[in-house]
């Protein structure tokens, strides 16, 4: 999308260049303008509106009374009852760390195994990739049952399997654990996206020129050295892409949590908190949390976009 006409032939300096330039990119601009206008209104316009709302005191259905500056933002960190917002950030942090590390490790492992030449690669690839085709809501409903926190006689789902296998000591409260419940909540997300990460890494492996492997072989590198010093370093851009994609998905996580636990204290993350604030007509608070969420995602995304732009310009 960023590589529109400019990446074709370079213009030559000559009289009437502006007209020629205009003629070259005006049709393109004309074609893009409907989507640009829509983006301007529905994305950037609404972001602007949300920012305005987050600076107002619209805390109930009565409507806006005035401008309060950054009060809504500072209140989230200092005045929120039980430190609810900080708690939701903590939950999000645990979820994000477990989810990203889990999905990256599993994805890399599968990609590595397939890359080593397992039989039936096409089949296995489909099997691993398939969970991604399911929506978080659908898989969340299944995982809600799998991660049933009942134990022993009341056990269901995974706990039931553990009991039946005489592995009762493995039973655990899953997402209802007050401290580490969010780590359990990350399991469905890992299950769902490891296959995607695998596909990314696999294409990364395939993108490494055969000459590099041959050269390493000629130099007498062992398999370990080949992977450690030749192949893995080449995967860094892939790993970065995977990190960004998983990272921004994780920050906005809502549907999975709503379908596994519903909206409640133990598993509350900022996106769920926004929903709860909207239900109680606290528009200003909901807007403030949304803006913080947007900034968090931007911190992840923007450096990546800049990096990507540089790489593209270089090539």
């Amino acid at each position, binding site marked *: 999308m960023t590589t529109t006409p400019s990446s074709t032939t370079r213009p030559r300096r000559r009289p009437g260049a502006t007209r020629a330039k205009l003629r070259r990119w005006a049709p393109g601009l004309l074609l893009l303008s409907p989507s640009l206008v829509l983006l301007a209104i529905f994305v950037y316009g609404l972001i602007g509106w949300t920012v305005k709302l987050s600076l107002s005191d619209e*805390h*109930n*259905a*009565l*409507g806006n009374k005035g401008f309060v500056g950054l009060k809504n933002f500072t209140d989230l960190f200092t005045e929120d*009852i*039980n430190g*609810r917002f900080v*708690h939701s950030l903590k939950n999000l942090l645990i979820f994000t760390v477990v989810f990203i590390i889990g999905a990256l490790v599993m994805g890399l492992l599968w990609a590595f195994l397939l890359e080593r030449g397992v039989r039936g690669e096409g089949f296995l690839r489909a099997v691993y990739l398939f969970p991604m085709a399911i929506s978080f809501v659908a898989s969340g409903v299944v995982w*809600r049952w799998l991660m*049933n*926190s*009942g*134990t022993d006689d*009341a056990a269901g789902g995974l706990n039931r399997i553990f009991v039946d296998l005489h592995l009762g000591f493995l039973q655990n*409260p899953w997402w*209802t654990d*007050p401290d580490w419940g969010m780590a359990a909540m990350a399991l469905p997300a890992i299950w769902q996206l490891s296959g995607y990460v695998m596909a990314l890494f696999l294409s990364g492996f395939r993108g490494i020129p055969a000459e590099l492997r041959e050269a390493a072989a000629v130099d007498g590198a062992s398999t370990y050295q080949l992977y450690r010093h030749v192949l893995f370093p080449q995967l860094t851009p892939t790993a970065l892409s995977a990190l960004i994609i998983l990272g921004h998905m994780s920050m906005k996580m809502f549907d999975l949590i*709503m379908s596994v*636990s*519903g*909206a*409640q*204290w*133990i598993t*509350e993350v900022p996106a769920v908190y926004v*929903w*709860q*604030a909207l*239900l*109680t*007509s*606290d528009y200003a608070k909901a807007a403030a949390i949304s803006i913080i969420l947007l900034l968090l995602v931007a911190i992840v995304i923007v450096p990546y976009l800049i990096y990507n732009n540089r790489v593209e310009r270089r090539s």
Partner: protein
Amino acid sequence: MRFRTRAAFAAAGVALALVASGCGADDGDGSGSGDNKKVEVFTWWADGGEKAGLDGLVAQFKTDCSQYEFVNGAVAGGAGSNAKQVLASRLQQGDPPDTFQAHAGAELSDYIKAGQIEDLSAQYQEWGLTSAFPKGLIDSLTVDGKIYSVPANIHRANVLWANKKVLAEAGITAAPKDLPEFFTQLDTLKANGVAAPLALGKDWTQQMLFEAVLISDLGPEKFTGLWNGQTDWGGADVTTAINDYKKLLSYSNKDRDTFDWTDAEKLVMDGKAAYQLMGDWEAADLDAKGFKDYSYSVFPGNGNAYQWLADSFVLPKGAKNPEGTKCWLKTLGSAAGQKAFNTKKGSIPARTDAVATDYPAYQQAAIADWAKGVPVPSCPHGSACSQGWQGAVASAQGKFSSDGDVASLQKALVAAAKQFAGK
């Protein structure tokens, strides 16, 4: 109603809501331009017993107000939360329905403060409602000397449901009268092999149980005072109540935070638990599920406190057909209208002059209690507190369920009261 899983069908519901709001607006324009006969009634009663109740009421409306035409403005989905969003936008645009449904009591305060609904005090006198409704209810409905809504029904929140068979096996013959007796019974049940004798669900069901304990420990008057600023949330009696509540939690199922009220109800039906505190919609639900071995009593120590919640209707400012709305409200408040609605919905009429024999067994008992009881409001069901307050308490209760920190819960309750009381 708040007691359903609010978010279950959120996505589909919003789509529906958008469609419905479009239709609603069209209807409004239609009635505004021509003859003033249509009365658009905005509810979230789209199916089940609620729809049946509404149909019964509409039949009565057709007889009493034959000069007007009923227009159904129901918005389905999300158990009322979608309807509230649609309603908020219509009110902001100055296109209100002729009347809309809202929980009676504190939940109406936003609309009253915004000047979006009309004072109905004169109509209360004219229609004789002031004497037909119990005084405690009238007091709860009155804001600064004015009454803004007509309640259609009354539900009771503080009812203790029991599995008779489980109780009999443990040798328990009578319902507990106060909290100490309740604890003794729960211990007996535990000794008889019922590991978690008290069935409990997630946040708002915990909120209901906690309020029932508060009523027992503080008494109805001080409990009501918690919501209007006359009782201090930081008091020692509230601490006692939190400790009692914490003790009750120890008798409940540990996976409560994963349960909705119907899941907890199933524990009682299956005999895995003996008791459950729940509103009286449970009677209709148990009957519908064909479970007969149940008994009910007021929560131990609540005495004659009748913790009520009610659906009510209002007259919005700028309604296109205010006379038609008044006719709807008059029908709603009349003995015939309340009977037509409540026999079908499974609740009881707010009027004290209802003929009990028109109703099924549970409702007959509830009608008798309502006539002589002390009405107290409920926060999770909108009669005691605003929606924001309710959300804050639900969150604090959820935290308490996982960490059992008494001081932190009390601190949160004090903070919530400070933030929301009188707003």
